[in-house]
């Protein structure tokens, strides 16, 4: 008897927390998303048109959010993997210092870091001048372009990519790589056949940790973007805070949640749950 209670007891803080701050608000938001009218006289009447309207009015922002988040995730992966690899295998006694360097930016809030980027990329800044000279900013400005938003997203979520990949690389038993050499693998073959598959769980975790928050982000588009760079997070924010159109904002939030879930499920299927669980390692 006692044995059966213990697990529930241990689960209860988490469960209560989730129910109170996730399930209950979710219920109210769901209800809100099906209401109609203006603030002050909202009524619940299964108004599903909030959803169809949300999708038809803001489809381009949805697509843009997923494209931005996707490109940022890919860039983050390309930057993170070699970095994590170096820290895990080549850094020697510098390992902790390098890891600290990866985490250090987190001592400053996300908002301030993005505002710093705004200053750094302003039209008269040396960075922008340089990019213009080498032909990467033909219009003469970097701020208020999609490039700036994607760069900001990549930068802000980079550590979420580096850390899981590092963790999975660091766990790899070096003897396996040695064994591959014993079996006449070249360095490249060894990497493709041993190291990369073994680090797949880290890659999957890192891409999800980057992609999911990036798709819902609105800070980068707000500060680094301009006209034509707004993401779905900005739309939800403005529907809620400036238009006081709570039903549409709630419906959009649900659509975003749904789309992200679908994307994640498809991705995990595609990447293979074995990769995620590290089955191939055995």
């Amino acid at each position, binding site marked *: 008897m006692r044995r059966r209670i213990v697990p529930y007891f241990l689960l209860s803080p988490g469960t209560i927390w989730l129910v109170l701050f*996730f399930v*209950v*608000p979710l219920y*109210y*938001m769901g*209800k*809100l*998303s099906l209401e109609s009218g*203006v*603030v*002050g*006289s*909202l*009524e619940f009447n299964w108004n599903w048109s909030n959803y169809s309207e949300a999708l038809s*009015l*803001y489809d*381009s*922002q949805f697509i843009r959010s997923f494209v931005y988040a996707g490109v940022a995730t890919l860039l983050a992966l390309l930057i993170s993997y070699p970095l994590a690899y170096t820290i895990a295998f080549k850094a020697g006694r510098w390992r902790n210092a390098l890891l600290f360097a990866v985490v250090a930016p987190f001592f400053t809030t996300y908002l301030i870091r993005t505002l710093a980027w705004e200053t750094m990329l302003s*039209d008269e800044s040396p960075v922008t001048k340089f990019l213009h000279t080498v032909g990467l900013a033909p*219009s003469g400005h970097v701020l*208020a372009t999609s490039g700036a938003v994607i760069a900001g997203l990549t930068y802000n979520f980079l550590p979420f990519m580096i850390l*899981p990949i590092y*963790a999975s690389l660091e766990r790899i*038993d070096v003897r*396996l790589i040695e064994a591959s050499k014993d079996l006449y693998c070249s360095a490249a073959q060894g990497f493709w056949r041993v190291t990369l598959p073994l680090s797949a*769980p880290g890659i*999957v*975790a890192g891409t999800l*940790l980057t992609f*999911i928050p990036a*798709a*819902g*982000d*609105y800070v980068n588009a707000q500060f680094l973007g301009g*006209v*034509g760079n*707004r993401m779905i*997070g900005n*739309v939800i924010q*403005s*529907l*809620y*805070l*400036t*238009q*006081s*159109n*709570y039903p549409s*904002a709630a419906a*959009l*939030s*649900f659509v975003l*949640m749904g789309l*992200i*879930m679908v994307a994640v499920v498809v991705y995990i299927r595609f990447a293979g749950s074995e990769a*995620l*669980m*590290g089955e191939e*390692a*055995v």
Partner: protein
Amino acid sequence: MVSSEKDRRGRQTVLAVLLAAVALALDLAACGGGGGGGIEGGGGEESAEEVKLQGKPSGTVTISNWPLYIDKKTVPDFEKATGLTVKYIEDVNDNAEFFGKMQPLLSQGESGGRSLFVVTDWMANKMRQLGYLQNLDKSGIPEVEKNLRGPLRHPAFDPNRDFSVPWQSGMTGIIVRKDLAPNVHSICDLFDPKYKGKVDFLTEMRDTVPLVMKCEGVDPEKAEAGDWLKAIEKIKGAAQSGQIRRFTGNDYASDLTSGNVVAVIGWSGDAVQLQIENPNIEWRMPTEGCMLWSDNMVIPVGAPNPTAAEAWMNYVYEPKNQAQIEAYVNYVTPVEGVKELFEKTEPELAKNQLIFPSESFTKKCSIAPPLSASEEQKLTQAFDAVLNS
């Protein structure tokens, strides 16, 4: 062989991280939808609940205002003069956001302990229509009756000033970098392809759209919904062509000082401050005229100690007290007699057209007309679609 124990733990870690990621994402999305439900019904429409004065003001009064909208001395001076205790909080940053925060309380007939707060004309109007504001007892505010400037006495949304008393007023026009765009003098100039990508417009619909209407030759005070939509269409075109760099609140300040843009639609009080930092920044009265607005003190339903709130209104309308506030905030004072005081003490300020605009200076300016709830929703939707494009 690899230790299977270590491996299993690793897998569990990855799973936990994944779950955390999904929960985080859901959380973010939930956040966007905001604080939840219970947004039902308001007070009665046009219910004219009136402030009931209770003898001599005493006790504590809580005042909500915008940041940096008062000098440091006025509150303690008021406390000394009246014996009241004032809790002065600066928690209004944006009309719409403040509304979002207060609405669930106000719809329950509560004000969250606030006796008085300050909102812009259109928001005062909106709250009034929802029955969230009380009528004032004018016997408690004789100084307001006496000293309120003539042009502010009969605004369309509150023709007899039954429920609102201006805190400060201001003008919306253009702010330019004299060194980079010396020839911008009108709203129409902002659409000149010469300044492509070098112009910011305001996210505040009631400033940006009527000004563009003026450029089109439409009088905003007589405009119909169709005129608004036409102006929004024009703004949309400029946004899509890349003419407008971005839509901002007063964060246009950073774009202007760094030279990212050369001209913006902006507020007079900001320009007075910015000019101190960079003398090349200048507020200009558009040749088409400006938009005039006021931020108003209002007493919400369920406000504790409204008697003291009226005492506060009365106090800040005494010219010498108002002069003290005005010297600090640099917006347009709604109180008669302040200019005369400044002429003696600070003649430079008294001459500044941005602080004491003459009637001829603001001749062509307009006040944004009140919109009905359904018009408002339609127009904000159209305008926000442009902002969010």
